[in-house]
């Protein structure tokens, strides 16, 4: 295996890339902490522990809400699986370009592979395995530390957040920005439009389902148009 020793520059770039992407999760995590303290069915410690057991904000939020409604465990677990199913696709993308990396990285990188870490990796362009690996680790470590701290803070001071704070809107702005950064050509624009429309049309399906269908169809449309437009040129 090539030299994969600690790359301070790449790790630092991962940390710096993750910091702005962690701005929206701060109010989100504070609100989640508050919802955990107010929950009847979810104890404070186990609710906070979901931040490192699940490490997936939307799934944590939906799981706490469903537990409070008294939904069956199997239903809630199935919902978590659907909400997070898009990560299978992220895993395929990252695996295809990461190169030969040690087992410990595969174990840890899988744990930290969130939307934001995937987005940061996506933005790196053509870089070597060592840099890619340490950038992902820097980003994942930063996200994981901040997320666990913020949800814990929300348990104690979540009620300081104003009731009308637009948590969902800030998340939408962040992913809108990441969408723009990830869209590099006309097939990419088509993939985004198709993905967005399908997700809206499918929003009454069980949580996560629409997003998964949107990714698969949007990516397929992007690839089909890429081939068609390249041939036309």
């Amino acid at each position, binding site marked *: 295996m090539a030299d994969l020793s600690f790359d301070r520059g790449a790790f630092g770039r991962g940390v710096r890339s993750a910091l702005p992407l962690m*701005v929206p999760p701060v109010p989100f995590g504070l609100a989640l902490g508050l919802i955990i303290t107010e929950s009847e069915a979810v104890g404070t410690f186990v609710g906070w522990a979901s931040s490192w057991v699940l490490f997936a904000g939307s799934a944590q939020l939906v799981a706490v809400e469903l537990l409070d409604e008294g939904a069956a465990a199997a239903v809630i677990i199935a919902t978590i699986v659907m909400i997070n199913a898009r990560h*299978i696709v992220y895993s*395929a993308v990252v*695996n295809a370009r990461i190169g030969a990396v040690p087992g410990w990285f595969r174990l840890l990188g899988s744990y930290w592979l969130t939307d934001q870490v995937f987005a940061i990796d996506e933005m790196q362009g053509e870089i070597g395995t060592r840099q890619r690996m340490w950038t992902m680790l820097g980003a994942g470590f930063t996200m994981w530390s901040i997320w666990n701290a913020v949800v814990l803070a929300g348990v104690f001071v979540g009620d300081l957040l104003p009731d009308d704070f637009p948590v969902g*809107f800030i998340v939408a702005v962040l992913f809108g920005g990441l969408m723009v950064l990830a869209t590099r050509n006309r097939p990419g624009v088509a993939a985004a439009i198709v993905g967005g429309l399908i997700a809206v049309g499918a929003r009454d399906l069980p949580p996560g389902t629409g*997003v998964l269908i949107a990714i698969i169809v949007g990516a397929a449309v992007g*690839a089909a148009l890429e081939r068609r437009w390249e041939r036309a040129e």
Partner: protein
Amino acid sequence: MSAWIVFGVGGLFTYLMRGSFLLLGDRVRLPAWTEAPLRYVAPAAFAAITVPATLGDEGLPALAPPTAEVIGVAAAGFVVWRTRNIPLCLLVGVVVLGLAGWIGL
């Protein structure tokens, strides 16, 4: 108790999905035809998260006339397209949402 089971099992499945390919490494080789679609996963995925979160329960009618949220996300998207600057994008989104709400959209 049931909260531990839900988070534990849900967390295990989440981990296995995140690791589905990454844990297996070279032992899984995707067929060549998947190469092009995988290039378009990111725009499709982030749009699929953004658009429903922006339009809210209203769906497509939120576009015409545009709600404050739609204007805010559109303005932020324009800024990030020109500047590639995510912190600025977040700031513009929040300021424009505030302004649009203030003039009553």
